[in-house]
C-alpha cells in the first residue's frame, strides 16, 4: 500500500495538502521612516511631491519605501533622472534590478505621457519622475492613473520650481542637515502638516552623516585653579 502511495507521489499524480503553496496573506505594511512625523508615512500617499536640491539624500529617503513596494514583483520606473542611475546602490538597498526600467524621454510632454502609462498599467509599483514645471490638471491625471494602477508616484523637483500648490497628497521640502535631512511638510492630505523636523539618517547611512561633535566627557572633571 505504502509503495503504491510512494509510486503515485513520485509520479506527481497525487499531492499532499502540505505541499501546496501557502496563500499569500495580506502583506504586513513595512514601516516607514516618516511614520512618526507624518500621518501615514510615505506609504499612504499615492502622489508625493519632493522639493529638493540634488544630492542631499532625496533618493535615499525613498529607497526603503521603493524596496518595500517592490515586494510584489512589479516594476520600478525612473523617468528622466538628472544623472545615470547606479545599479549597485539600488541593489544594496534591496531593489530587484531585473524589475527596473529607466526612461529618457525627449521632452517633458513625453515624460508625463510615459509616467501616466506606467502608473495606470498596473504593472509598476512606483514611478519616480523628475519634472520641472507641471500643471494642476496634469497632476490630477497622474493621481487618477496612480489609483487605476495601484502605483505610487514620486515627483522630484528642484527647489527653484516651487511656484504653486499642486493637488498632491504629500509635499515635502528637503534641506541638507548634519544628521540627515531637515524636512518641511508643506502639504499633507488628511491632516495638518507637522512642524519642520529633522530626520535622523545616521542609523541607515552612518557614513553619510557628519561626525558628531565631541561632547566633553563626563569623566573629565575640569580643574579650576584655586584662586
Amino acid at each position: 500500500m505504502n509503495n503504491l502511495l510512494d509510486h503515485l507521489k513520485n509520479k506527481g499524480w497525487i499531492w499532499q495538502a502540505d505541499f501546496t503553496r501557502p496563500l499569500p496573506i495580506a502583506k504586513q505594511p513595512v514601516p516607514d521612516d516618516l511614520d512618526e512625523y507624518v500621518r501615514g508615512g510615505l506609504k499612504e500617499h499615492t502622489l508625493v511631491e519632493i522639493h529638493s536640491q540634488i544630492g542631499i539624500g532625496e533618493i535615499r529617503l525613498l529607497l526603503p519605501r521603493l524596496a518595500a513596494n517592490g515586494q510584489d514583483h512589479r516594476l520600478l520606473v525612473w523617468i528622466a533622472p538628472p544623472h545615470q542611475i547606479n545599479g549597485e546602490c539600488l541593489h544594496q538597498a534591496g531593489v530587484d534590478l531585473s524589475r527596473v526600467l529607466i526612461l529618457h524621454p525627449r521632452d517633458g510632454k513625453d515624460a508625463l505621457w510615459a509616467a501616466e502609462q506606467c502608473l495606470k498599467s498596473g504593472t509598476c509599483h512606483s514611478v519616480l519622475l523628475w519634472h520641472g514645471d507641471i500643471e494642476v490638471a496634469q497632476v490630477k491625471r497622474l493621481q487618477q492613473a496612480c489609483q487605476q494602477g495601484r502605483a505610487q508616484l514620486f515627483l522630484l523637483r528642484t527647489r527653484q520650481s516651487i511656484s504653486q500648490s499642486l493637488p498632491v497628497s504629500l509635499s515635502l521640502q528637503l534641506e541638507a542637515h548634519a544628521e540627515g535631512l531637515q524636512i518641511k511638510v508643506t502639504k499633507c492630505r488628511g491632516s495638518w502638516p507637522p512642524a519642520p523636523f529633522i530626520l535622523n539618517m545616521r542609523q541607515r547611512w552612518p557614513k553619510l552623516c557628519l561626525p558628531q561633535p565631541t561632547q566633553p566627557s563626563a569623566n573629565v572633571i575640569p580643574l579650576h585653579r584655586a584662586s
Partner: protein
Amino acid sequence: MTPLWLYLDFPSLQLDTLYQEQASNPVIILNKEHNQVIQLNTLAYHHGIRVGMGLGSAAALHRDLQVIEYRQELEATKLAEIAQWLYFVTSDIAFWSPNGLLLRIQHMLSMYGGLPSYWQALNDRLSPLKLNIGYACGTSPLGARLLARSGHNLISQDPELLREKVSLCALEQTDLPQSMCEKLARVGIRRLKELMNVPPGELAKRFDSQLVTYIGKLQGTFHHPVDFYHPPAVFNQYLELMYEIDSSTILLQPIKRLLSDLERFLRLRDKLATVLEFRFSQRDSDALSLTVSSAQGEYQAQQWQSLVSLKLENLELDQPVYGIQLAVTHMIAKEAQVNDLFAGKQGQMNHRQLLSLLQARLGTNAVFGLQLRDDFRPEYSSSYCRPFERLEKQNWPVPTLRPSLLLAPHRPLNEKVSLLQGPERIQTGWWDHQAIDRDYFIARNIQGQWLWVYRTRDNQWYIQGLFS
C-alpha cells in the same frame, strides 16, 4: 472509404468580383485573344448576347454594352480567396485553373455526419460571396468536374447514379480536344457511355493514349494526382483605398480593417505577431514603410491599433496614400501567462506590453533596464542594458557604500569640500586598456551635497557620483 469528390465551378468569376450589385447596363467579359464573349450578366443575356459570340455581334445587339477585358490573374486571386474562405469548413481543397475548385470530401462526411449536412455547411459558407456556382459530386475528379460544368448541380454519393449521369454526357462537354471529339463523332461515338462500355484493353487498341488516360481517370481506374491547397504561412495583405488619404490620422481607419484580418489570421493559428511592416503606396513618390513592433507579441487588433496610432502620430506624409500593404513575417507561439489568482487584480497589461507601448512612442533607445557587471570599476559595475534582458536576480555583494547617481562624464572638482570617508583605492582594469588607479572619498560640500570624489595618481580631483 470510396473516394468522393466535389467540384465547384465558377463560370463568371471575374464578373462576380467586379460587381456586387445589379448593374444597369449589360456587361460582358471579353477574351481578347479569341475575340469571344466568355462571361456576361443577366441583362446582357436578355438582350440576346450569348457566350462564345464575337465582340462585333455582341456590340450590335446593344449600344450601351460595357466590355471588360478578361484577366486571368484576377480570377486566380479571387479563387485563392475563396479557397482560404472555404478552408474553415473543409480541408482538402485543390485549385483547378482558371475557375474551379476541387474538394475531396469523403473524409469530411463522417465529421459532418453525412453529405446533406456537409453540403449545407459548405453552402452557408459560399452564399455570402454571391457567386455564380455550378457544382457536382463525382467518384473521380474528372467526373465531378464534368458534371459540374455541364450544369448538373448534383449532390449525391450514390456511385451508380453518378456513373450513369457521367455516361450520359456528350463528348463536347468533356475536356477532350475538339479535334478528337470530331474524330470520334465520325465513327458514331457521341456520348461517353459508348466509350465507358468498352474494356480498357480494347480502347487502347483502337484509340490513342490521351483518350485512354482520360477515360481511365474519369472512371477512377487511373490515379489522378491532385495538389491540395495549404493556407499561407505568412500574412501579407494589400488594401487598395477607394480615395487617396493625405492625413496620417485618417490612415488609421483602413488600417483597422487590415488589423482585424490579421487578428483572425493569428487567432486561427494560435500565434502572436511581433513586428508589423506597413507599406504605404504614395502617388508620386516611393512607398513609405513603417515598422511597428511589440516586445511580447500580440494578436489582438485593439492592442495593435493603439501601438500603430502612436507611430502614426510621428509619421509625415508628403504625398497622398492610395494603398496600404501589411506584411507579417515573424510569428511566435503564444505562451501561457501565469497570473496568480490569489494575488488579486493584475492590471490590464503585463510588463512586456507596457514596454512595447513605451518603445513605440519614445523610441527603443530611450528605454533601458539596469544590470550589474562583475567589475570593480564604477563605470562598468553598473550599466544600462536592454529592458528585461536578464530576469534572474543578480546576487552578489556590493563592496561598500555606493552613490545612487553617477555622473557621466565625470566633473572636475572645483569647490571646497570636506572629505569624510575614505580613501578607498580602486586600481584595476589593466587587461582592457581602461585601467584606473584612483582613491575614492565621500565628501560633503557647503550646500550639504554628498559627493563621491576621487583623486587620480597625478593629484587631479573629480566628482563621479552623488549620494542622492
